[in-house]
């Protein structure tokens, strides 16, 4: 009969963990960003992407609001703001 539980990566979209954010979310000012990639490197979700300067941003479907990107940004180009304070969808 049918085999065991095996999952193909392409089939998995993962849980939308963006819903975990309670208080804060990162806001990417994209003004002084020097594309050092530190935010992308240390994001536990791996949901920060960008190419050149001032293009890095996290995917709010998955971002859990931990604040590590804001902590690590050498240019303070990421700030933590109240969740929902700017009307962005969750």
């Amino acid at each position, binding site marked *: 009969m049918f085999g065991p539980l095996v999952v193909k990566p392409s089939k*998995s979209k993962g*849980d939308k963990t963006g819903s975990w954010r309670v208080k804060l979310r990162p806001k990417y000012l994209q003004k002084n960003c020097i594309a050092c990639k530190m935010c992308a490197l240390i994001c536990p979700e791996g949901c920060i992407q960008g190419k050149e300067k001032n293009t890095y941003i996290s995917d709010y479907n998955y971002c859990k609001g931990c604040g590590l990107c804001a*902590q690590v940004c050498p240019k303070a180009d990421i700030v933590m703001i109240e969740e929902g304070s700017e009307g962005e969808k969750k």
Partner: protein
Amino acid sequence: MEYNPLFKPGHTACVGCGQAVAARLVIEAAGSNTIVVNNTGCLEVFSTKYPETAWGVPWIHSLFENAAAVASGVEAALIYLGKSPPNGGMPPITPTADSANGGKAAKDTINVIAQGGDGGTADIGLQALSGMLERGHNILYCCYDNEAYENTGVQRSGLTPYATNTTTTPPGTKSIGNIRPKKPMPEIANAHGIAYVATASAGFPQDIQRKVKKAMSIKGPKYLQIHVPCPLGWRHGPELTLEVAKLAVETGLYPLIEYENGKLTAVRKIQPKPVEEYLKVQGRFKHLLNNPEEIKKIQAIADANIEKYNLKVKPGAT
């Protein structure tokens, strides 16, 4: 955003999880031509809850203590299939300069990584790991050291630091918490005479990736132990994961070292900070903060590391 990275978002690690950071960095450095064998633990649980998976590479979990053995079987199968060079052979008796870079791993070899947490590696999985190291398999074993059995709710492991508060070594009127120091796991791995042993930290992400790439370029068994803060178990804010990891290294409590063919070839030099800076930001050490005597013992551990590995940066050196 379309993701085909090797460790995708959507996993259910706690907010600010250091192990999630390190696991992604490891597999991105190792690349897609990699098979991962994972012990039971936080990483396994939060990355593969059916029907979801965070892994973009072939990945298998069997049990809590046999990743090193399952990986040995994977590697043996790859050799049989001609997708990995034969392993074994004598480790260099006296580590000489030229043997320091060891046999190069062939370009198209499929990388095999066995990985687990500190408990899964140094306690319940030690036997399988020792067998894998001793047999000379071409495998990188990666230990994510969050210093307790975090997945089952922060119980003490062999790598739990001295005096730490865990649910099975709670401080009380009769106890200061965990009464034993960390098991010297990197030294134990190194004692197997393998080609490469290194420690790394979630506080130094590029260093993790450099060491993974280096390990993958070396044939034979490799051991990498990565210090990964656990906001839940260490009781600090998720935004402090990076900071706490750095402090562990900068106080000398978690030396970042590299052994090649048994010889200590590199350490991350530090301008040592007092251990108290590290302790005070973590709830798991809160019970020590008005206990200078215990803090002195922890400082002594750090000082011993600093001396043993000559961690202190020379004055004036940049």
